[in-house]
């Protein structure tokens, strides 16, 4: 399923290529460096680089979090966890596990549907991988920046269900079938409150572009959407719970529980195919934690106005210093995400498991009405505020002033330097996204204002 987004990357470059290749800084840089490639070759190379980088961010966190889970689980259970492979802390335990799984025999039940049995792990992995293509890792660092980034990311993530159902079916075992169906029912049901709570920050921000959503949370931790209004505050915890269930994590992990007892959709899988399912699970954990950070917890902003100003004031936006500030921002984002993943691991080893009927009851009877109510509250909150305290936000500047230049209406497009007009007394500031940095895929250029085209 990366192919639709490959199409998107290439077609975006193509649509701009009729007049100039101004669409993507990376493509420009490639064409300058290797002029022999031509338009198509440069686009293809840019797409390959993006895919490789995203694949790195897909595999490495899974690697780290598998190790982290075992250490944290050990500590919670009053033991040490892996301590031998790779030194005192067992850092290479994930690598050892990977090597062990690769060299295992590739079994398949004889009665299994051979095509579907082999294909379903790949569907799950591709769905989890493709979701990373739409999220920004730092300001302007999105592989494919779209106006509807959040929507497409959630749409692609919903393809995981197919892989699980097909895996359960094609294993030719009743336990796999029932386990797969239960898991699929759980994941599909929890997409409803997931969509509702993910739309709440979109309503607050007015855009589905994740880069712009984070840009609006700059300035201080009081600007984070978590603290925007009480409904968004509850929505964050609801979002976190729903993503726990959607990822089949405890306390909603019936597939894994059944695997300890009888089966589950991955009973008949062994070796590398089995490891694909868990690679996808950890990558999805990382992804939804990153979504929660981007949507509610301010993304790559530290939350302290002094530090945020310093981050933006690193000179220019172009060149090496802009690059450095973006790297720092990415590190901040990844640390916040790691914190949320740690909380997920912590919850898994603390809470007992729910039964399947309790899982479905929680979703349909409690979470869906609560999320509908929160959505209604968020939509009417500015109206309540306007009628009582005559201001549309409790603290901080109105959101219209925090809107990045790229989404401003037509009249304002004459101002091409976004920093001048908004780094004022309110303390809001925004890192430049319109500048072209040679090493970086520039997402902001897709929203290039009319004057610059």
């Amino acid at each position, binding site marked *: 399923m990366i*192919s*639709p*987004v490959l199409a998107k990357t*290439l077609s975006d470059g193509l649509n701009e290529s009729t007049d100039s290749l101004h669409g993507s800084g990376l493509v420009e840089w490639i064409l300058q460096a290797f002029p022999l490639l031509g338009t*198509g070759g440069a686009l293809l190379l840019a797409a390959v680089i993006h895919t490789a980088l995203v694949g790195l961010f897909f595999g490495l966190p899974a690697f780290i979090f598998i190790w982290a889970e075992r250490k944290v689980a050990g500590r919670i259970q009053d033991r040490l966890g892996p301590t031998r492979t790779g030194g005192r802390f067992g850092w290479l335990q994930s690598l050892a596990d990977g090597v062990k799984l690769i060299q295992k025999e590739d079994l398949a039940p004889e009665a299994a549907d051979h095509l579907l049995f082999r294909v379903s792990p790949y569907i799950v992995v591709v769905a989890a991988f493709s979701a990373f293509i739409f999220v920004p890792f730092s300001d302007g660092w999105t592989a494919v920046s779209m106006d509807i980034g959040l929507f497409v990311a959630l*749409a692609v993530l919903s393809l995981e269900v197919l892989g699980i159902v097909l895996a359960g079916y094609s294993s030719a075992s009743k336990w796999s079938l029932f386990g797969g169906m239960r898991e699929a029912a759980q994941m599909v049901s929890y997409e409803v409150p997931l969509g509702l709570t993910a739309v709440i920050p979109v309503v607050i921000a007015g855009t589905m572009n994740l880069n712009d959503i984070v840009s609006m949370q700059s300035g201080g931790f009081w600007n984070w959407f978590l603290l925007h209004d009480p409904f968004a505050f509850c929505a964050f915890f609801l979002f976190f719970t729903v993503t726990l269930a959607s990822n089949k994590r405890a306390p909603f992990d019936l597939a894994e529980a059944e695997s300890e007892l009888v089966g589950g959709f991955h009973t008949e899988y062994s070796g590398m195919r089995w490891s694909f399912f868990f690679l996808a699970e950890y990558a999805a954990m990382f992804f939804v934690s990153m979504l929660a950070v981007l949507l509610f917890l301010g993304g790559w902003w530290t939350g302290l106005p002094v530090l945020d100003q310093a981050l933006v004031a690193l000179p220019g936006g172009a060149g090496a210093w802009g690059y450095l500030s973006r790297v720092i921002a990415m590190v901040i984002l990844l640390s916040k995400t790691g914190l949320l993943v740690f909380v997920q691991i912590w919850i898994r080893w603390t809470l007992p498991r729910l039964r399947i009927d309790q899982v479905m009851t929680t979703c349909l009877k409690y979470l869906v009405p609560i999320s509908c109510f929160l959505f209604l509250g968020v939509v009417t909150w500015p109206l309540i505020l306007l009628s009582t305290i005559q201001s549309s936000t409790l603290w901080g500047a109105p959101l219209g002033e925090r809107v990045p230049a790229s*989404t401003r209406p037509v009249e304002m497009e004459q101002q091409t330097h976004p920093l001048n007009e908004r780094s004022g007394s309110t303390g809001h500031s925004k890192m430049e996204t319109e500048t072209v940095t040679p090493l970086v895929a520039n997402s902001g250029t897709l929203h290039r204002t009319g004057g610059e085209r």
Partner: protein
Amino acid sequence: MHWFLFMFYALFAAGGALAVVFSQNIVRMAFYLVISLGATAALFFLLDADFVGATQLLIYVGGTVVLLIFGVMLTSSSPFSSIKNTPAELLQGGIVGLTFLTLLISTALSVNWSQSPEMVGGTQLARVEEGFNPRQEGNTSRSIGTALLGLRFDRDLAGQTVAAPVHEHPATAAQGEQTLSVAPAERLSTGYLLPFEIISMHLLVVLIGASYLARAKRSRTASPV
């Protein structure tokens, strides 16, 4: 490059559809349907319809096909039951299909689409340069969202319709526009608010109806036909 991508996805879409027809195992049919629908979503992305493509992925592939697979699981008497067609039926179906296909394609190809006075050689006319996030690049979410709320700013603000723009005085409108100076409010383009509401009610009714139809009944001896 555009051509190459189009051919790639068109082959997957058409190939998936053909595989659905020729496959005899129902779950494999569902899988090929997934391939076909995914390639269709990619074609939507190529056609600058990002929102529609994402909706296709979310609702069709992530929802409808899962529903179909659940239906298959719940109604199969054995895990690999397949109700096969006889070769004669396949041949008849194939012949009818091929005839119809040639009919359709020859009709579509014989129309000279560029002859229409409003189209100029395949370029789009009703496109409005909106300044920021132009729709040509696929950023249709704003336009679609406001259209579903009843506002068609992509038509009305640029004066593409015969309406005078909303904010201008009707007297000054005659200078800029080429048509009548009528009261603005009556000539605004209609949005899609009513269909939106109707669809919402429709979905609610379908939800209630389908869950009532498919409720677990008390067990009674099923009588095979």
